[in-house]
């Protein structure tokens, strides 16, 4: 299935999908290991490094920009992020990592009904040039 959305931060990425509820990267994500560490989050313990992170929205502290950028620098960040609500905090982190290190982590927004469908699949290819983005989802 191929879904069309909007690019917040350009790039391309592919990987296994991790569909989770909103996560605050600050306090909730360990940039050293690439895992969820928020004890109250249902995905606590899950590794997001190299995955396509599918979550409806960002959450919590504005320091999440730094945590995401640090994870991108270390290679422990999600390969790409697919949201259904634009999140300026996560977008800023990905933009700065691109500007400083030339490492991309595309961040895109899909309409809610498309976003829900994506979570049913196992793998995704995100192609996000400036403007509109496409996500190709498959079961393997």
């Amino acid at each position: 299935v191929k879904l069309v959305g909007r690019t917040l931060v350009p790039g391309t990425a592919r990987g296994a999908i991790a569909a989770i509820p909103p996560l605050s990267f600050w306090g909730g994500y360990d940039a050293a290991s690439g895992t969820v560490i928020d004890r109250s989050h249902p995905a606590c313990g899950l590794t997001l490094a190299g995955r396509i992170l599918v979550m409806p929205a960002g959450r919590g502290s504005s320091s999440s920009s730094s945590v995401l950028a640090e994870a991108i620098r270390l290679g422990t960040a999600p390969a790409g992020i697919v949201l259904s609500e634009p999140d300026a905090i996560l977008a800023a982190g990905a933009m700065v990592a691109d500007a400083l290190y030339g490492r991309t982590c595309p961040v895109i927004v899909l309409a809610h009904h498309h976003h829900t469908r994506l979570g049913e699949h196992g793998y995704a290819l995100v192609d996000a040039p400036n403007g509109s983005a496409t996500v190709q989802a498959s079961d393997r």
Partner: protein
Amino acid sequence: MLALTDIDRALLSGGRGEAAAFAMRLLLRYGEALGAERFIAITRAHVDGCLYHGRVSLDFVEHLAALGGRVSVPTTLNVGSIDLIHPELFRGSPEAAANGRRLMQLHEALGCIPTFTCAPYQTLFRPSFGEQIAWAESNAVVFANSVIGARTARYGDFIDLAAAIAGRVPYAGLHVPENRLGRVVFTLPSEARVHWSADTLAVATGLVVGEQAGAAVPVIDGLFASTTEDDLKALGAVAASTGAVAMFHAIGITPEAPDLATALGGREPEACVELSVADLEAALAHLSTVGEGAPLGAIALGTPHFSLAEFSQLIPLLDGFEGNPAVDLYVNTSREVHARLAELGWLTALERAGFTVVVDTCTYVTAVMRDVRGAVMTNSGKWAHYAPNNLGAEVAFGTLADCLASAAAGQVTRRRA
């Protein structure tokens, strides 16, 4: 598509220096992501990027410094990782201390004012009603918008400093008058004012409103008419922690809400929520991870940073106060208030009572507390919300008087309402 003015184009092309061009390119992409149509000028900034989160924190500021960056508007700084006045309080590694200190110094070198406080509204650099500003730190953002009526979107790391250097921000979010209107009305029951004092009711309200308001600007009806700025500070801080609230209206209290119709801009609210005493009680109960009688290891006050008015309530409580050797006492504040404490002789009173006064940082974001194996009691909803995850601490929430009584008793002891 973002329409650019001559000022914007000059910034982008390097006419105001390479650092400003780098900052403006970042802001342009950011503005496009937000769907903004144009940029506006700001008069002030408050930067949260001086708290160390890893190598990227230093790389970003060093990059701007190497390009010759300077902030172009008065720019205050949020807390850092180190108390530079009392560096011996830091319990992390020497490397973390060195990085934290260097990051704070680099921000000063870019021309930022070394306030190192999460409560810049308690400093000389407080903005005025209607000013367009770029503030980071969620509690400062909600305070500026709600209590002062200054206008800021919710800025985060990197973008805050980029805005301070360029002096521009995308015209979006709460910069735009229409987006500041209330959309969801929360009504408190009148019995709530019998059950709780103004400070505790503010925290309970902030908890529930943060959880339920989502992205909508909430309107709160039914707080005490005597609600103070410090109560509103606590309400906003906790609402911005349990949710993403960046502005609230309190009818008859905050400047853009003289009455309900004005707060709503004459429109119908999208939803009305009647809160019950039970809702508020449940939210407060959820904040504590331990119950009455739990042994205490510390009390933590001053999140956000304690104001002079809050110290004026604390000082009389120290009369005849006998601390318990097992319970450490911490209070966070700014260097500006710390200097006043010294002048007033209050610092001596605090130290005599056993308090560690922490400045430039905060006990929930850095390694300062000696021991968090015992439970920690706090009168801060924000501290109680974050500390279990950040520090691995067990927490009890209570009033300022409860905190001191519990510190003396060595265990959680709340006065019955």
